[in-house]
C-alpha cells in the first residue's frame, strides 16, 4: 500500500468507519463540530444533501446502526422504518420527547441522552428565573435602563423568596442513580430556606421530601411550582387551569422543561387576569413563538430556551454523546442509557 498517497489512505480508513446518521445538526454539533471527530465512527450528514429526507435515508442509510438526533430531528416510527439496521439512538439533549420510546423499546433499540451533564445549568437557570420573577430583577433592570429611577423614585417591591415556603416540582424518571442529578434544583432551593415537596408517578423512597400523588394537590400546598419533568403523553398539559387556580393568585410557575407540559393558552389567561402571580419560562409550546400577551406583562420572565446553553455544559454533552457512540460501536456498556421505569 506504499504507493497510495496519505489522503487516499485516510479516505480508505474513513470509508471503513461505521456511520452515525444526523438528520439535522443539533446546536452542539453546529458549535463544536471538531469534538465529533472520532476514530470509531463518522457522521452521515443528511442535511447536506439536496435529496428530501425520506429519499436520502432510503438511498444512504440502509446500514446505519446509530442515530444522533435532537428536537429538530425527531425519531418517529416513520423514520425508524426507514432505518432497518438502527440499534442505537442518542440525543444531544436532556429531553427525550422527540424519540418514540415505545417503538424503540419494541424493536430493542437502545436510547441514550445527555441529561446528566445538563442538570447543573438547568437548575441554575431555574433558580435564577425564580429569583428574577419574585424579586423583579429583569423589570427593575429595564426600569433603570430607561432612566426612570431619578424620575419615578423607588421601584415597587418584589416578594421574599423564602416566604415561598413550599416549592414543588414534578419529576418523572428518577431512579436512585440519577437522583443526584435530578435533585439539583431542590438542593439549591433548600439553601434559600425553601421547603421542597414533589410529585411523581410513584413515590421514591430515597427522596427526602414529602410526596404528593397528584399535581393539583401539590399546587394547593405550594407557592411555587417548578416544572422539571419530561414531556410524555401523560404530562402533556399536566399544568392545566385547575392546577394553576389551585396554585393561586400569589403562585409562581417556573418552566425549564418543555412548553407543552403547561396548557399555555390557559396560563396566559390566568396571568392576564391575575389568577396566578407570575411565571418564569424558558420553554414554550411553539418555539420560537411566544404569546404576544406575555410580552406586555411585568410579572413574567421570558428566556429563549437557553437553560442549558453554556459552553461548559455543551462541551460536556459533546463528550458524553461521543463516548456513548464509541461505547456502542465497541460493544461496551452505554454511559447514559435511558432507564426503563
Amino acid at each position: 500500500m506504499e504507493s497510495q498517497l496519505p489522503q487516499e489512505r485516510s479516505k480508505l480508513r474513513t470509508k471503513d468507519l461505521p456511520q452515525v446518521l444526523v438528520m439535522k445538526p443539533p446546536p452542539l454539533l453546529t458549535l463544536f463540530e471538531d469534538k465529533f471527530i472520532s476514530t470509531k465512527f463518522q457522521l452521515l450528514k443528511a442535511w447536506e444533501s439536496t435529496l428530501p429526507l425520506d429519499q436520502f435515508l432510503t438511498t444512504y442509510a440502509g446500514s446505519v446502526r446509530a442515530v444522533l438526533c435532537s428536537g429538530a430531528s425527531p425519531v418517529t416510527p416513520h423514520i425508524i422504518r426507514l432505518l432497518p439496521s438502527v440499534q442505537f439512538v442518542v440525543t444531544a439533549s436532556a429531553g427525550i420527547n422527540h424519540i418514540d420510546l415505545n417503538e424503540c423499546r419494541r424493536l430493542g433499540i437502545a436510547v441514550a441522552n445527555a441529561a446528566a451533564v445538563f442538570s447543573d445549568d438547568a437548575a441554575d437557570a431555574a433558580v435564577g428565573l425564580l429569583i428574577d420573577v419574585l424579586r423583579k430583577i429583569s423589570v427593575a433592570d429595564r426600569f433603570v435602563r430607561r432612566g426612570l429611577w431619578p424620575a419615578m423614585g423607588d421601584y415597587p417591591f418584589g416578594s421574599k423568596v423564602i416566604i415561598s415556603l413550599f416549592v414543588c416540582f414534578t419529576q418523572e424518571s428518577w431512579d436512585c442513580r440519577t437522583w443526584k442529578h435530578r435533585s439539583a434544583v431542590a438542593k439549591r432551593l433548600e439553601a434559600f430556606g425553601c421547603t421542597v415537596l414533589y410529585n411523581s408517578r410513584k413515590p421514591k423512597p430515597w427522596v427526602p421530601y414529602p410526596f404528593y400523588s397528584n399535581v393539583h394537590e401539590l399546587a394547593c400546598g405550594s407557592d411555587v411550582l417548578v416544572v422539571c419533568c419530561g414531556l410524555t403523553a401523560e404530562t402533556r398539559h399536566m399544568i392545566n387551569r385547575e392546577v394553576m387556580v389551585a396554585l393561586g393568585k400569589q403562585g409562581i410557575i417556573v418552566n425549564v422543561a418543555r412548553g407543552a407540559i403547561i396548557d399555555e393558552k390557559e396560563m396566559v389567561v390566568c396571568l392576564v387576569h391575575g389568577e396566578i402571580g407570575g411565571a418564569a419560562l424558558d420553554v414554550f409550546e411553539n418555539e420560537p413563538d411566544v404569546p404576544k400577551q406575555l410580552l406586555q406583562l411585568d410579572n413574567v420572565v421570558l428566556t429563549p430556551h437557553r437553560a442549558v446553553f453554556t459552553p461548559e455544559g455543551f462541551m460536556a454533552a459533546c463528550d458524553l454523546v461521543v463516548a456513548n457512540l464509541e461505547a456502542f460501536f465497541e460493544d461496551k456498556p452505554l454511559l447514559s442509557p435511558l432507564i426503563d421505569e
Partner: protein
Amino acid sequence: MDSIGVLMACPMNSYLEQQLDKRFKLFRFWTVPDKSLFLASNKDSIQAVVGNASAGADAELVEALPKLEIVASFSVGLDKIDLAKCKEKGIRVTNTPDVLTEDVADLAIGLMLAVLRKLCESDRYVRSGKWKKGDYVLTTKFTGKEVGIIGLGRIGMAIAKRAEAFSCPISYYSRTKKPEINYKYYPSVVELAAHCDILVVACPLTKETHHIVNRDVINALGPKGVLINIGRGPHVDEPELVSALVEHRLGGAGLDVFENEPYVPEELFGLDNVVLLPHVGSGTVETREAMADLVIGNLEAHFQKKPLLTPVV
C-alpha cells in the same frame, strides 16, 4: 407618646411613615422649604431621627438638635450616621439587622445568575421578537465558579451558604481572619479578586472601605471576572468600574447600588454584561414591614425606658 417629636430624614416607606405619624409627632424633613429655619424653630421638639441608606444624621444635624436622644435607621448600613458624634453625645443608635439578611443574600445570588446566565438580556431578546431570527448564544456556567466575598458578616455568610449549594468554592477578605470559618481567607482584596471568578461586596461602608474596589482590584478580577455590589455605591470607584466594563477589562457586573443614587452612569445602559437595579436589596413587602416594625419597636422601647431591640451605639 404623640408629643414626642420624630424627624424622618427622607421618604422611605409609607407603612413606616403611617406608623410614626400615629404614634409620635412626625416631622417630614423633605417637605420643609428651609431646612435651617425649620431646625432653628423646632430643635427643642425633636427627640428622635429616623434615617435610611440615603439620609441619616450627620454631625451637623446632630449638633442642630439639642434634645436628640435616639437615631433609628431604616437600614442595616450606618454610613449616613455620624456614630462618633452620637457616642460623644450619648445618643442611642439602632439599625435593622437580621430581618433583611436573607433578602439581600437572595438578591446577590439572583444578580450573579442574572449576569452570568444573561437572564435580563435573554428576556429583552424574547420581548423584542429577535428569537424568531434564531441564534445560539452560550452564556457562562454559574455552578462551580469561585465566589470571593468582601466582608463575612451576616449578609456575607448568608451569600456563602447559598453559593455553596451551587458547588461554588468560597473565599473571603475581612479585616481579620476568622479562625472558626473554613473558607479560604485572603489578607487583601486584590489577592481575593485575583483568585475568584465572582467578587461580592458585602461589608459595611466606612472611611476604610470607601473605594475598597479600586482599579487594582478591578484589574485583578479581570476580563472574565464579575463584580456584584449589594453594599454601598461608594465601596466601588465607579468611574473606574465603568471604563473597565466599557473597555472589556472586566467581564461583567451586577449592581444594586451606585455612588450617586438615583443616578446610574448611562454608559452602562447599553451593555449586556451588566444588571442594574435601583437599590432593591431589602425591597420586599415582607422585609420592609419587618424593618419598619423594628424601627418603631426600638423607638418605643427607648421612650418607655426599656432595652433597645437592635442597638448599635
